[in-house]
């Protein structure tokens, strides 16, 4: 069996350079193991070895993320590892952030597995558990003796590509990531099996625990609409004819901002929907049905609203992940506020 090549990332302290006073050192590459890498190397026995160690100061990394990441990647790449191990960082905030960032970057750049170790409350956990495996550790280095065997066990499984058990069984912090696999039984059979257990009050495990939704408290009402600037924002996919930004018909990764200067009415010749999740015929005939520009222009003329904001924003809600939706909403909301918009009409489909 091929020996596993491990590259280890540590900070200035575990890299035996120095304490807080050395936290601003730039990345250094050393052959073989340093500090806790020795124990990793021992635990690997004949399965593999720590071929190199990259050491970087925590302040340096966090204050020069892009540059530090590039240098670290270049150093790690030289040693063609099968896996990268970072830390463990325990509850050290900046160290944890650096470990997480290095793991994420290595996985993206080289397509190899990565893992690290942190205390559950370390800020690096929330930021990076989605991108790497974070073995749960104690909150200080007293947990080193327990952390390293767990990390090495997982390391070997990741390199071997064996099907992992649950996060609890494997000792890592759940990544909050859904991953597909083929079951031995089809879904309909599993549903009937689950039903029988539920009927008989026997324990069963749901395959999708319900998420908790965040709720947005409504703003106070606008007292004088005759002075309000109103914007139109839609997830109904209305775009200028031809969909110039190629917004996807499902699972949108972007939104568009389009100028309404001089536009009184959306017509079949000028606008359409990019949305793949509803019958598009009626929206294509008259896009005002989804994005009511004509009515807003009437209200403008009648003096019932101050004015219609010059741009509208559009994306496709169909199959679009909540994470993307939140990202779009934050960006759109920021622009609207900066441009003095008082009210938004959100239309869906």
């Amino acid at each position, binding site marked *: 069996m091929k020996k596993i090549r491990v590259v280890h990332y540590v900070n200035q302290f575990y890299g035996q350079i120095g304490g807080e006073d050395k936290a601003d050192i730039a990345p250094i590459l050393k052959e073989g193991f340093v500090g806790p890498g020795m124990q990793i190397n021992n635990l690997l026995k004949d399965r593999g070895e720590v071929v190199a160690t990259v050491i970087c100061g925590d302040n340096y990394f966090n204050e020069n993320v892009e540059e530090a990441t590039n240098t670290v990647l270049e150093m790690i790449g030289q040693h063609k590892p099968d896996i990268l191990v970072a830390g463990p960082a325990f509850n050290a905030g900046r160290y944890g952030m650096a470990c997480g960032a290095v793991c994420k970057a290595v996985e993206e750049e080289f397509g190899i597995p990565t893992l690290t170790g942190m205390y559950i409350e370390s800020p690096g956990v929330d930021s990076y558990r*989605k991108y790497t495996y974070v073995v749960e550790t104690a909150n200080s280095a007293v947990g080193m003796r327990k952390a390293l065997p767990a990390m090495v066990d997982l390391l070997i499984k990741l390199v071997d590509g064996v099907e*992992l058990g*649950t*996060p609890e069984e494997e000792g890592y912090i*759940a*990544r*909050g*990531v*859904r*991953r*597909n*696999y*083929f*079951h*031995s*039984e*089809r*879904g*309909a*059979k*599993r*549903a*009937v099996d*689950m*039903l*029988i257990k*539920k*009927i008989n009050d026997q324990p*069963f495990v*749901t*395959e*999708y625990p*319900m*998420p*908790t*939704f965040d709720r947005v408290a409504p703003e106070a009402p606008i007292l004088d609409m005759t002075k309000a600037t109103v914007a139109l924002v839609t997830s109904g996919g209305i775009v200028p004819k031809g969909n110039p930004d*190629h917004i*996807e*018909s*499902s*699972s949108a*990764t972007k939104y568009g901002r389009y100028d309404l200067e001089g536009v009184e009415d959306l017509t079949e010749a000028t606008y359409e929907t990019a*949305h*793949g*999740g*509803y*019958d*598009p*015929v009626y929206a294509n005939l008259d896009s005002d049905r989804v994005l009511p520009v004509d009515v807003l222009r009437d209200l403008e003329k009648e003096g019932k609203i101050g004015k219609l904001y010059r741009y509208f924003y559009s994306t496709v*809600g*169909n*199959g*679009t*992940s*909540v*994470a*993307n939706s939140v990202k779009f909403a934050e960006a759109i909301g920021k622009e609207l506020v900066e441009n003095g918009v008082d009210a938004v009409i959100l239309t869906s*489909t």
Partner: protein
Amino acid sequence: MRLELGYIHIKDVQFGEATKLDNGTLFVNKAEMIEALGKDERIASIDIEIVHPGDSVRIIPVKDVIEPRVKVAGPGNVFPGMLGKVDMVGEGRTHVLQGMAVVTTGKIVGFQEGIIDMSGPGAEYTPFSSLHNVVVIVEPKDGVLQHDHEAAVRIIGFKAAAYLAEAGRDAKVDEEKVYEHLPIHKSAEKYADLPKVVYVYMLQTQGLLHDTYVYGVDAKQILPTLISPTEVFDGAIVSGNCVSACDKNPTLVHCNSPVITELLERHGVDYNFIGVVITNENVTLIDKERSSNYVAKLVEMLGADAIIVSEEGFGNPDADLMMNCIKNEKKGVKTVLLTDEYAGRDGGSQSLADANPLADAVITNGNANEVIVLPPMDKVIGHPEVANVIAGAWFGSLREDGSIETEIQAITGATNELGYHKLTAKEI
């Protein structure tokens, strides 16, 4: 209602001089079949190809997958209300050509149709790659409106399946199954000690390429109602529906309705499967409220102790799914749900557009957003360029070498929510 199903195992399909079955091989007279599909004034051309499991072939855009079935005894015909008359089906005897299907393709109607790869990694995700497929390529005349285009192709698919099924009318069958669905009170008497189970069968009903038909009626316009499992096996429910093709039910899946089939397996042993309630997934809130209220009422009238609810589609119908769950659970009816997930390409987003703590027993059929690269195939039937616009793909999905990078959302049947297939998802 008692239905005998006679399954004829199809081992090969080939073109031949006459359309007939010979020792497990179906021969198809191509010219005669095209003639039988009728002269629809909306259609410019029809062509037929045959593909087999393992072939280096991609079919895109796929509209429907239909299993040939023929009624050999008992009232009515398969696909009642779509073909022939509207006699009530589900009694007598029906022959099934199993191991093959009709697949319809041709110019894209919307953004919505799917992909079937007959080999390679994509083939694992579509259950229809394991079939001998008679691909019917239907091209509309210029200027035909989308609704008319969709309707024309849909009917031609049913006609194609009916035409081929005739070859099995007098054939010797390889396997027999008999299903009997008793009147509700008789069933309750017979299995007095068993808990009563109802299946709530949600049908996608949101307009063009999102519609399902029951005895020819657009299911948008129904109130939730009862149907016998045996009627479903005779094609009383058909698809007009392939938007985000991973989790839409082609007609073949309705005819082999997986939850009904699995519930029948343990009927009379672990529970009494007393009935099927079909309901719709309309787009307006008032329709959702009405239909889910009506479902909960029917479940109560049937005296059910437990139900399985299956969804078709995602996003908007997640609201229907939750309403059907909550309203029944609140009446003390133990509920299991079947859905799929849209957890984002990285799997890190929440999976459903609606959720409720009462939905504590959920079967997932996989994350439709997961990305796959479908390698180039030697042959593409249909229109490969639509890979840049169909739901689940994006501009640039179709690469120069003919490979396609897409979410599995675009693969027909990949995350089927009737639990037809084995894909699922877990948290890592």
